[in-house]
């Protein structure tokens, strides 16, 4: 028998005690693994709350601050591009119109609690788009919320709020 064959034939075998030691004396799961459920819980909390911040950028709303024309030239006005519907015109009529040549900025906020944060975030964006607006920013926070900043034509703000709230 060659040296190599002898070495292979008489190779040491792990004692049963070692096998048992390795299999039974397994260490506790690493701390990083333990954190996972906590993170999952945090994620569940995130799903429970969603905050939608709705911004309306308009030339007609008097409720909020006015912006000088100079500022208006640097900021595109969505209300110009959006054609108001009859319904929205009625709603807009409830709001005093702005002084001529003035660009008005209206803010509105809405906080909704949802089960599916991702789906609701997507839906909110779709609602804004369908009403002639767009999502300026979407931020997901670890505290369990997503913050959406939507830009909408002034006449569609109330409609947007109603649809976002349902």
């Amino acid at each position, binding site marked *: 028998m060659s*040296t*190599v064959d*002898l*070495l*292979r034939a*008489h*190779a*040491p*075998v*792990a*004692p049963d*005690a*070692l*096998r048992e*030691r*390795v*299999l039974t*004396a*397994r*260490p506790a799961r*690493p701390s990083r*693994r333990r954190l996972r459920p906590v993170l999952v819980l945090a994620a569940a909390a995130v799903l429970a709350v969603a905050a939608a911040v709705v911004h309306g950028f308009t030339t007609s709303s008097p409720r909020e601050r006015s912006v000088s024309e100079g500022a208006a030239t640097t900021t595109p006005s969505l209300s110009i591009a959006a054609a108001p519907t009859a319904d929205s015109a009625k709603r807009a009529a409830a709001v005093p119109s702005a002084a001529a040549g003035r660009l008005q900025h209206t803010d509105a906020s809405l906080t909704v609690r949802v089960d599916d944060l991702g789906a609701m975030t997507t839906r909110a964006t779709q609602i804004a788009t369908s009403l002639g607006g767009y999502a300026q920013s979407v931020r997901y926070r670890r505290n369990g919320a997503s913050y959406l900043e939507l830009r909408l034509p002034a006449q569609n703000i109330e409609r947007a709020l109603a649809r976002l709230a349902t």
Partner: protein
Amino acid sequence: MDVNAASSTLGLPRAGERPAFDDVVAEQLDGVYRYLVYLTGDRSAAEDLAAETFEKAFRSWRRFDPRRGAARTWLCSIARGVAVDWFRAETRRRRREDTYAREHVAGEFGDGLPGPLEAALRELSPAEREVIALRILLDLDGPSAARVLGISTTACSTRLSRALKRLEEMTDDVDG
């Protein structure tokens, strides 16, 4: 995943397949233990180091990627790191103990191994025994063994040839 399917992936893992950790222990414990016995020349130390190796492996099991190499190679790399730490501590211990005497234990490198071969193995350096363990006892291929050792495949092959040659020369001297 059953044990057979898992064990088939241990030598040459298929992409994406990940064996269960218990299956890896069952399949690889002997190999890791043999490697550590040859590397340290001390069965008692090898047991401790093997246990430590699998503990470390379990802790980093999520990072094991079967597509990048076999579990055996991965475990041997961990075992080598554990053994290197042990060698450092052992060297410090020996320096502290003036009365340190090298003990020869029969059957350290294998049960029933002929005495001359056992003695010859004892005369080899840990690096020479290490490459024998990886290539012959654990059947790692050249590139895998070289990766564990951190040397080139050519250097690994050369080291193995020299180690076997020395081993045979020593046993021939005894026989003659």
